[in-house]
C-alpha cells in the first residue's frame, strides 16, 4: 500500500483498540478513520465543519473530525459510531433513533448520535429547546429533526429518572 513520504507516526486508541498509525501532517482524522482504518461510519458531508456528519468523540468530547488534523491528536482516545454498541447491544441512543425513526437516509445519523452522546455528557440540555439548539451543528437534509429530539429526550429523561 502506498505511503505518503511525509507520513509520521502517531498513536491513537480507537474504539478501545490501540492503533499505531502513520499519516501525513495534512491528513484529517476523518480521512484517517475512513480511508486508513476503514471505519466509514463517520461521514463526510462538507469537509468544512459545517454539517456535523463527521462527529466523533475525542477524549470524551464531541468534535468535527474533518477539522482535526490526525497528527495533532497523538495519544488521544477516539470513539466512533462503530464503538458505541457493546457486544450485540445497541447504545440507548442508537436504539432510540431506530424506535423514533430519527433517521431516513442514514447519512447524518452516525454524526447525530455521536453528537447526542457528547450532548448528554456535557449536561447542558434541560429541555427540548436546549436539545434543538445544542444539536444544531448536525444538519439533516431528510428533516428528521423532530424525531431526533424525541429520541434524545427519551434517553435524557430516562437518565434523569434513573439518577433521581
Amino acid at each position, binding site marked *: 500500500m502506498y505511503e505518503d513520504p511525509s507520513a509520521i507516526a502517531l498513536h491513537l486508541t480507537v474504539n478501545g483498540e490501540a492503533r499505531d498509525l502513520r499519516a*501525513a501532517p495534512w491528513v484529517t482524522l476523518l480521512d484517517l478513520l475512513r480511508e486508513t482504518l476503514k471505519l*466509514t461510519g463517520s*461521514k*463526510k458531508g462538507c469537509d468544512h465543519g459545517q454539517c456535523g456528519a463527521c462527529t466523533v468523540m475525542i477524549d470524551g468530547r464531541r468534535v468535527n473530525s474533518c477539522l482535526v488534523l490526525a497528527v495533532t491528536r497523538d495519544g488521544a482516545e477516539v470513539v466512533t459510531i462503530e464503538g458505541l454498541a457493546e457486544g450485540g447491544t445497541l447504545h440507548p441512543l442508537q436504539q432510540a*433513533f431506530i424506535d423514533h425513526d430519527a*433517521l*431516513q437516509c*442514514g447519512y447524518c445519523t452516525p454524526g447525530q448520535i455521536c453528537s447526542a452522546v457528547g450532548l448528554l455528557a456535557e449536561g447542558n440540555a434541560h429541555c427540548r429547546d436546549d436539545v434543538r439548539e445544542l444539536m444544531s*451543528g448536525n444538519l439533516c*437534509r431528510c428533516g428528521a429533526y423532530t424525531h431526533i429530539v424525541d429520541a434524545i429526550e427519551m434517553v435524557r429523561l430516562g437518565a434523569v429518572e434513573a439518577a433521581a
Partner: protein
Amino acid sequence: MADGGMAIGKPISRIDGSKKVTGQALYAAEYDAPGLLHAAVVSSRIAKGKIIAIDAIEALALPGVIAVLTHENRPHVAAFRYAYKDTVGPPGGPFKPLHDGKIRFADQPVAVVIGENYEAARDGAALVRITYEEEAFETDLDVAKAEPFKPKLPRIGVKPAPKSRGDFDAAFAAAAIKISAAYETAAQHHNAMELFATTVVWEGEDKITVYDKTQGSQNVQLYLKQALGFKLKNVRVVNAFVGGAFGSGLRPAHSAFLATLAAKHLKRSVRLVLTRAQMFSITYRADTRQEIALACDADGRLLAVRHACVAATSKNEDQQETVVNWAGLAYACENVAFDYQLARVDTPTPGDMRAPGAAVGVHVLECAMDELAYAAGIDPLELRLRNWVEHDQNDNLPLTSKAQKACYAQAAQRFGWSERSFGPRTMRDGQDLIGWGMAGGVWDAFVAPVPTRARVTWRRDGRLEVAAAASDIGTGTYTILAQIAAEAFGVPVEQVEVWLGDSTLPFNPVEGGSWMAASTGAAVARACDKLKVALVKAARKQFKLRGRKGALSVSRDAVIGEALPSRAVSLNEIVTAAGQDITATGTTLPDLAGQRKHASYVHSAVFAEVRVDEDLGVIRVKRIVSAIAAGRILNPKTAGSQIIGGVVMGIGQALHEEAQTDHRFGKVMNHSFQDYHIPANADVGAIEVIFVQEHDPDVSPLGVKGVGEIGLVGVTAAIANAVFHATGKRIRSTPITIDKLISA
C-alpha cells in the same frame, strides 16, 4: 389504518435502521478495492469560454499524483449526444464531461486528477493551471426572461401546460373582486448530506462494478455503457444505500462518468468524491418568475384564473416541470389561462427537486388564494371549500379519490384554526407578531410509466427474500417491501430479507415522483402471488398429486390441503425437497386504460404558525400541522417521516434557501452549508402529521398513492401566508428573508 393487515399499515421501525445507527450501512464512497486510487475534479474558474492551455506539470510532480485527465488526453468516449441520454432527462443535448475545451457553466469539470490517496488527488487538483479565453454569458433569469420561449419538445412524463379554457380576459375584466401579482422563487440546491461519490472497482478487462450515489442503478448502468463503451453485462451499478438525493440523483451525475473514465484509462479501481462546493454545479431547482391573477364573485367563487411562469433552463437542454397546471385543477373554475415558458441561462441544466413544479407552482397559487381571500373578506380555508372540485378540469376526467376535505377539517381542528382572528397584525405575544396561515397541497399519484419488476424467493434457509433494482434513498423502501411480502405470506417482517440498489436485480425505474411504493410494492405483491402458485406446484410434484383432487393453498409458511399427508407441509420442507430455492417474479404495468378514464392526485392541507420579531424581522416557524390524503399508508412511521421531511424542506424553501449567483462571474457564491442555509434543528418547531382515511382501489393495485413529494407542497405557501397574517406584508419572493420583510 383500517385497510391494513398484519404487516401492511403497521408503524414498523425501518428494517435497515440498525445498519444505519451502527455505521454498517455502506454508501458509495465506502467500498474498498485492492490498489484503490483516488480522483479529484478540477472545476472551471469561468462561466463561459474555452480552455486555451492546461499546465499539469506541477500537479504531476506532486508525490502520489498518478495522472491528470483532461479533454486533451482522455481515452476515447462516445461523441454523439444520444450516447449521453438517460431515461429521465429532458429534451436536448446532455452535458458531455471532458468532451472538449468549451466551458458552458461555472465550476464545470475540466480535469480529473488521480492520486495514490485522497490527499494527493485533492492537492494535485489545486495545482492544475488552466488558461481560459472568456466569453460573454448570462446567468441572470431576470435578464434572460426577456427572451422566453415555449419548449419545442415536451419532456416525457411531464404534463405540458394545459390548453386554456373559457374566456379568462372577459371574466377577469368583468369581475369585481380580483388580485393580480408577480411572484419569484429562487434557485435551490438539493444538498443531500452525502457527497456525490463513485467507487469504480476494476474487475478485469472492461468489467466494472460501480458503487454510485444515484436514484437509479440501471439508469447509470445504461449511461456508462453508452457513453464509455462498456458492454451492458460488464457494468454492474450498486446503490444499496443512498445518503439522500431529493431528485439530484435522478440523472447520472458527471462524477460517475469521470470516475469510470479514470478507471478505464488506468485499468485500476478509482474513487471519486465531489466537494460540497462542486455539488452546486450538478443541477438545481430552477428559479422562476411567475404571474398569477384570480377573480371571484362576492361569495368567493372563482370566476377567472391565470397562471404564467418563466423558468430557467440551460443552453443545452429544456428542463420542464409541471408548474402552472395546478391552478386549473385545484379549484373549480371555467375560465382558466395558462402559460409556461423557459428562458436560457449559462448554468448546468436545472433538474427535478422534491415535488418539482408543484413546489413553486402550488406555492404561488396558494399564496394567491390567500390574497384573494383577503380581497374578498373571506376566511382562507372557507374560500378553498367554496371552490371545491372533484373533477380534473384540465383533462376532463373524474378523480379516483380526493379526501382533501378531511385534510382541511382534521388539520384545522388540530391546529385550532377557529381561534384565528382574520385581520393581519391582530395576534401577538410580547415582541412577537403571531401569524397563522394555511394552504392546500396537491401532487400526482403516479404509477411508474414503465414496467416495474420484483423477485420473491422462498429460500432453503427459511427466509423470504425480496429483490428489485429499486432504490431506498431514505424513503423506507426496504421496510415497506418487507411488509408487503410479510403480509402476503402472513409471516413476521423479521423473516423477510430485502435486496435493493443493484442493477443486476429485476428492472425498476429511477426512484422519483413518489411512484416507488405503488409500483414496486405492487410488483412484490404480484410476485408473492406467483410464488404461492409455484410453491403449491412444487408440493404437488413432491407428493405426486398430479391429477388428483384436492385444492392446495399457501397459509403462512405452509402449503395446506386435504390431499397432503398431514394436511400441511411447511414451505421449508417443500424447498428442501425441491433441492432449490423457489422463486417468482412479479411485474407492475402502468394502467394506460385506467389513465384515460380517471386521474389521481395526492392531497394535503397545511397549517403554519410563525412568530415574527416586530423590530428585527426574524421569522420562526413555531408549529406546522400537515394532513395528508394519500390512499393506503403502508407504514405510518416511515411515511410520517417522509411528510415531516417535506415540511422541513418547505421551511427551507420558504425562509432560507437560495442559490446566490454573482452574475458578474456567473457563479454560485454561497456554495457551502455555511452560506447556503438548510434548516437546522433549531429552525424547526413542532410538526404534526395526520394521515386521513382514503380508500382508493383504482389509483394503483395496492391502493397506494406515494408520499415522497406531497409533504413539501403547500408548506411554503402556508408559511408565507402566516407571515402576511403576522405582519400585513405580502412577500412575493421566496425565500422570505429578513431584508425583504424589513424593507417591504
